[in-house]
């Protein structure tokens, strides 16, 4: 099946810092989503981005489908950005399911 690798696994930053999270995937996809899992366990949709670039406030994401990777940028981090960030993909042909990476645990210290 499709493989999804996220890096780094853990990231600790001070408030106000910028960060880049990476997601590599092993096959063509027709869905790529970035999620933030909050402390209560809910997966919050950040981006639906199988290709291209999107921005939403302090967050932006870029997916280069031909090179099979996606990047999530967080600028001017706040303590509320802490949590686990997941990348998930759905393979282009068949499957019809999201396969998740192992996540990046982000800790923003005040």
């Amino acid at each position, binding site marked *: 099946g499709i493989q999804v690798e996220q890096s780094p696994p853990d990231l600790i930053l001070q408030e106000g810092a910028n960060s880049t999270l990476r997601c590599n995937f092993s096959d063509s996809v027709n869905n790529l989503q970035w999620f933030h899992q909050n402390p209560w366990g809910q997966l919050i*949709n950040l981006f639906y981005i199988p290709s291209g670039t999107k921005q939403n406030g302090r967050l932006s994401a870029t997916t280069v489908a031909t090179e099979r990777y996606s990047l999530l940028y967080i600028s001017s981090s706040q303590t509320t950005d802490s949590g686990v960030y997941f990348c998930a993909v759905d393979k282009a042909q068949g499957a*019809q399911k999201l396969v998740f990476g192992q996540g990046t645990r982000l800790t923003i210290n005040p």
Partner: protein
Amino acid sequence: DAMVIQNPRYQVTQFGKPVTLSCSQTLNHNVMYWYQQKSSQAPKLLFHYYDKDFNNEADTPDNFQSRRPNTSFCFLDIRSPGLGDAAMYLCATSRDYGSSTNEQFFGPGTRLTVL
């Protein structure tokens, strides 16, 4: 606001005692999914419904069953919970399968404890 709702948010059951988790959606989406997420792991798909068509994942244990009586509701039944079934159970929906319609939206989850 259109949303995905899961009840209860926390469920405690005893070893071997059947339990049912509930998911409802106001998005009128065709597809509903159930994922299992164990502690410090990524979510893993158990099965999904496209309308009334049930699609099981090959490695989902027989102990897990699902029902979708109508578009809005989907249930996860665990027939004989074991200690290893303690996890967060996440329900998700998508409008359809194809590109631009397959974005998935998740409910808040039900955290299951097995004693």
